[in-house]
């Protein structure tokens, strides 16, 4: 029965056009970035930086490297927007539309209903990340040759590795990106369980993430970085490092998983005590 409920929740989710806004925006952004990288000074500047660090541009200006270059801004700017947009809809939109009342005439517990929705949200996060990574690599491969992976994010990651290892790391990093996306979905989902409009749930969740980014970037709060979830979102870049700082990766993942579970519990408690009215 749980599988049937989950399958139906996915039908609802992937049956509406709104769900695909994020996918569409990612595709457009990727095409635009790919063109910008290839046809502006961005590529020549990148080649100079590679040469300056003692690496051969011909070996590392590759599909893998360009895919990561394309992913970084999209993950910072677009992923929170679309993950929270969908997460904020889960309960609040159904409540606003009136379908929630129809469902709650049924002999299903509110916690069970939320659990099904939350798992559907996590699956959405996984699909979003898989499509994002897959299309980034696919588009990059159309315009650039296969080769090694070079990653350089000042203060966060610096590494170069051959193509095979680079592909493995690239795929592995998507597991961590999926946890990031599901955390964003879960936070918006939590607000969605309160008595508020779907847009409000999305905005509150985005604001929460934005406040984390701002606080984290203030030098005074550097020593408190572990308390800001956006700090832990960088895990996906850490697994592209050489060697991988496993202790920090593990710590961050535990914190993100805990945030996911906490968001679900808080949302479920708020939803449980709510009166559902037309």
């Amino acid at each position, binding site marked *: 029965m749980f599988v049937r409920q989950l399958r*139906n929740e996915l039908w*609802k989710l992937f049956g509406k056009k709104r769900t695909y806004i994020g996918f569409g925006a990612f595709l457009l952004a990727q095409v635009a970035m790919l063109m910008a990288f290839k046809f502006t000074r961005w590529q020549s500047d990148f080649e100079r930086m590679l040469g300056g660090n003692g690496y051969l541009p011909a070996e590392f200006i590759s599909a893998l490297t360009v895919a990561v270059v394309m992913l970084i801004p999209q993950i910072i700017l677009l992923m929170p927007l679309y993950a929270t947009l969908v997460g904020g809809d889960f309960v609040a939109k159904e409540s606003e539309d009136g379908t929630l009342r*129809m469902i*709650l005439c049924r002999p299903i517990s509110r916690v069970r209903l939320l659990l099904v929705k939350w798992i559907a949200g996590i699956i959405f996060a996984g699909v979003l990340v898989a499509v994002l990574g897959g299309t980034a690599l696919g588009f990059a491969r159309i315009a650039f040759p296969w080769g090694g992976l070079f990653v350089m994010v000042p203060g966060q990651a610096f590494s170069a590795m051959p193509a095979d290892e680079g592909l493995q790391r690239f795929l592995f990093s998507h597991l961590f990106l999926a946890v990031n996306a599901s955390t964003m979905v879960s936070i918006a989902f939590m607000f969605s369980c309160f008595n508020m409009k779907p847009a409000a749930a999305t905005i509150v969740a985005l604001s929460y993430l934005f406040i984390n980014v701002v606080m984290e970037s203030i030098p005074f709060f550097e020593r408190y970085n572990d308390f800001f979830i956006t700090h832990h979102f960088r895990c996906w870049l850490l697994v592209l490092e050489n060697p991988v700082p496993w202790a920090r990766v593990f710590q961050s993942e535990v914190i993100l998983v805990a945030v996911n579970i906490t968001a679900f519990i808080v949302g479920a408690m708020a939803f449980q005590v709510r009166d559902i009215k037309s």
Partner: protein
Amino acid sequence: MTDAPIHLTDLRKVFGGRPAVESLDLTVPRGEIFGLLGHNGAGKSTTIGMMLGQVWPTSGSIRVCGHDVTSNRQKALEKVGAIFESPVFYDYLSGWRNLDILSAYSGATTKARIAEVVEWVGLTGRIDSKVRTYSHGMRARLALAQALLPKPELLILDEPSDGLDPEGIHEMRETILRLHRELGLTIMLSSHLLNEVEQLCTRIAIMQKGHKVFEGQVSEVKAARGRVMLKTADFNGATALLQSNGLITAASEGRFIVLAPGRSTAEVIRLLVASNVPVEGVWQHEQTLEDFYLNLLKTPPPVPGK
């Protein structure tokens, strides 16, 4: 303990300090079509919300199908179907998919059962179309189909005719009667359409500002001794004569008289004819539910503690 499908005891709900339902006791016996009436904001929808476990009561007890809704909602709603005013569905999905989604929350409902209710409500030819292409009437039928999915014993209908055209209202009324007749369901109906309630319900309760101000059989309401219509060329002279002889207590609107206790229309006719007052007609004016309802709601609801 009672086996009544709905049994509410001393039910109370307060929203932000404002009482929405006060000290409500209500029992709906098995097999009845029960009407819940009241103006907007009288507390009908809140009461229905509490019966379905969507609104938590402030105090009191709600038993549906023999189970306490607050502590055992799943068991209580196992055999309950419900329809709300202006039924809402996932418009971007087909009627069948909507029913499949809702049936997944109704225990083990098979595809055969879905097909059975689709046929029962007459949506077979359109069930694979997207709901956004449905008319109001088709949506109402789909709403009915989803309510029938769990093979209910109790059907709760909150303004089921809302938004329907006269033909749709007639169709809905016939369907409710058919459900009662063929499936033997107990039906609780909340409606603003007094004519509809009068035609459908066997028993009613009327709510005003959160209080139940009346509960009884519809036949009692209609048979209640009301006014008598008197048609005569000299209404004022006739009523003066009748009052002086103690046959009536009041006269109004140039055509109605109210008989004094123990007096009959036959006595009225006899006196008028004997006094040479030209009588064109005298007949008992049957009270409609609308008359009763409007008169009842003119009186303010009871004040707590008095």
